[in-house]
């Protein structure tokens, strides 16, 4: 079945350490790719998106993501995590072959930041 997979439900990272959150998709055509962040009780904020071109995408708050077509992945990275980065992160995809712009979400990864 076509889907978006975030294999890590929870991740704990020490403050100042690097972070990588994984996202894989199973759509045949190259999709549009997004990462969103959600703080507790809040809405979703767009971190970055990839449509085409350079496969390394820079986003807000010091985040970046790399599209790897061969691995059907779009992993999110940050070189040094801050305590304020603790939140839930969602990978989302617009499948490239849909007739309209339907955004499909992964199940999310909750990031905990330890002192």
């Amino acid at each position, binding site marked *: 079945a076509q889907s978006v997979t975030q294999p890590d439900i929870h991740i704990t990272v020490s403050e100042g350490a690097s972070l990588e959150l994984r996202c894989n998709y199973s759509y045949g055509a190259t999709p549009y790719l997004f990462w969103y962040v959600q703080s507790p009780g809040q809405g979703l904020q767009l971190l970055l998106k990839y449509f085409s071109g350079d496969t390394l995408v820079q986003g807000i708050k010091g985040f970046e993501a790399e599209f790897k077509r061969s691995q059907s992945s779009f992993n999110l990275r940050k070189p040094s995590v801050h305590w304020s980065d603790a939140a839930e992160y969602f990978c*989302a995809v617009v499948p490239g072959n849909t007739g309209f712009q*339907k955004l499909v979400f992964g199940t999310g990864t909750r990031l905990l930041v330890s002192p």
Partner: protein
Amino acid sequence: DAGITQSPRHKVTETGTPVTLRCHQTENHRYMYWYRQDPGHGLRLIHYSYGVKDTDKGEVSDGYSVSRSKTEDFLLTLESATSSQTSVYFCAISEPTGGYTFGSGTRLTVV
């Protein structure tokens, strides 16, 4: 960013009662969406609209209906609320640049 307002922000209702959630946008965007968010499921699409009076079902549409009589308003109705519809509901719009903007959400509790 497009202005999206959801109302109400919180609602508690009884099983079997009808409930309507409202999404209002100020930017005249064509596409609007209703998602529900539940732990372990991420966000799942309930219904979407691609224009006034043009709507279609998403992956979890059972028990929900929608209406869009004006470009700026997209209403989600639970015809007869059930406890399984306790959730956080998000409205979204998609912009011509390809981005998506979400409202602040409505937390609905069905008791």
